[in-house]
């Protein structure tokens, strides 16, 4: 089973919390954190189609390339991402518009409000295990 995860967020504290929770729930072994969405995008595209991460935690509000722009840039790879990589939006935005907008992207598997909770990761873990079976 693929055991890689990406965390894309311009906030270091968020990296710390998310990484720690993923580890303690044993969802992934190899966790890569990015401050810039562009770097994550480059690496992801390089790993497609064979070896992409199983999950990506994506912040929305980031300088330079924000979460939406990252998702837009992934459009050409939609079919390659399917079943292999699950993208979860992880944001502090309480704006309902953002959540609605995330539904427009079929390759977005979930929308979490910060802070990420252990319960969120438990559901997420079940989801992934079910699928890999």
């Amino acid at each position, binding site marked *: 089973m693929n055991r890689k995860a990406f965390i894309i967020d311009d906030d270091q*504290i968020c990296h710390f*919390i998310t990484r*720690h929770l993923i580890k303690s729930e044993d969802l992934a072994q190899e966790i890569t954190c990015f*401050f*810039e969405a562009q770097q994550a995008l480059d690496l992801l595209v390089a790993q497609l189609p064979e070896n992409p991460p199983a999950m990506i935690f994506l912040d929305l*509000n980031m300088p*330079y390339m924000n979460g939406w722009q990252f998702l837009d840039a992934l459009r050409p790879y939609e079919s390659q991402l399917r079943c292999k990589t699950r993208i979860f939006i992880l944001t502090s*935005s*309480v704006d309902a518009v953002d959540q609605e907008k995330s539904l427009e992207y079929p390759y977005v598997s979930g929308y979490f409000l910060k*802070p990420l909770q252990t319960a969120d990761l438990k559901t997420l873990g079940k989801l992934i295990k079910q699928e890999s079976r």
Partner: protein
Amino acid sequence: VQRNLASPAIFNSSFFASILELSVDILLVLEPSGGCQYLNNPAMALLGGDLMEKEGARLLTKVHPQDRSAFSQVLTQALTQPKTALPPCRLQTKQGPWCWLAGDVINMSHDLPGLVLVLLLKKVAPPGEGAFQGNEASGPEKKNARKKILQWELENLSLVASKTTNGVIITDNQYHIEWVNEGFTKHTGYTLDEVLGLRPEDFLYGQDAGRETADLYRKRLLHNLPLTLEILNYTKKGDPLWFLTEVTPVLNEQGKTVKFISIRTDITEKKNRESELLSLTKDLCDQNRDLQQFTYIVSHNLRAPIANALGLANLLADLKPGEDLLPEITKNMKTSIRQLDTVIKDINLILSIRDNKDTLALEEVTFKTVFNQVMHNLSVSLLECQGEINLEVPEGYTFRSHKAYLFSILHNLISNAIKYRSPQRPLQIKLECQGTPERGTTISCCDNGLGLNLETAGKNLFKLYKRFHTGIPGRGIGLYLVKTHVETLGGEIKVWSSPNKGARFFINLPE
């Protein structure tokens, strides 16, 4: 029903009688001598029943003396042909006054032996000018009276046209000016001599809208419809004036337009009030939108550190024995709370600037002095990156402004230039300040740093908490503050930039 007929019997038939009575026209039946045999009800009502009482040529006695000879001529003619037209003639009515009647005289002797002429008449308008018809004046006397009245009317009309405070223009049907009144000259400064033969759009409408306005005019007036519109004109001196203009086509007898009369009321004051109100409304809308955006941004940026602190607290609660995370959690907790504090301080700062907008006390500020204060803060970081700054400002230049705001504007612009310098070349900053009577004070800050792509960043460049460079720490508040300060001082800011070439900020602060 009393029938007025002596003969022939046919008029006694009730069938004919009812048809004749139904007719609204005036119908008389004359015997060849001119005596009346029959009058229908409208005829009786108009001319009276006494015509029937005696036999003989009574009808002619009812005809106006002046028309009598024409009338008897027609009757004579009618005896020899089936139908003769009767031109308008005056007949005396039952009540006394004259009434103009005209119609046909029909000779019916072929069909009805003994009965000769039937007059079918209608009331008609007096021939010529109705207003001057009368039985008291006649001939040259009448003409004279009419002329006098016309003269009097003309004098009064021209008095109204020339003395009214409204502007009046009369043009021919090709819009060439034939006459303007004093009001027009008072409004626009142009005299009749100057504009005679010109078209209004040649000199009144200014550069831009002239053609369009003229075309609009033409389209409506093509259909000979009067037109009312609000129109912007320029005086001889070049001042803009708004007019409510009413254009009326003057038609000739054939219905063709021969002239246009344009009456113009000065509504500049009303228009100015309108545009003031409009700009006030726009200001309010802008401010409202700004505030909404501000609230949104702030709520987002307030929530981010709170969410982090909450997440860290959750980690603390779930901490398993033996995990050595406590120092890192504590450190991050502190950072989150400090960020929260910073956002709250930012809000306070921004609100206090916005609050000052109307009560800002301006003072005489020496540009060089404020610049020196800024450089006192920034010279170390400039030195560290081996950057250079060039200042161009007229010696001792002062202007009315706000010291702290100017300090903040310069500080943010220069520290941004230092922060976003290019690693490939030594930093060069050129700062220029000028004063012009028309534009007030202009400040230009130009650097050779990283620059940015305005196509992608442009919309957000001056927005709160927006950042455009990765790997360089920053809160995304500097340019927002610059813009807020500039706008609070009533000025505006513009930017030019291209990636990896540099950026130029241009500020204009009007007096």
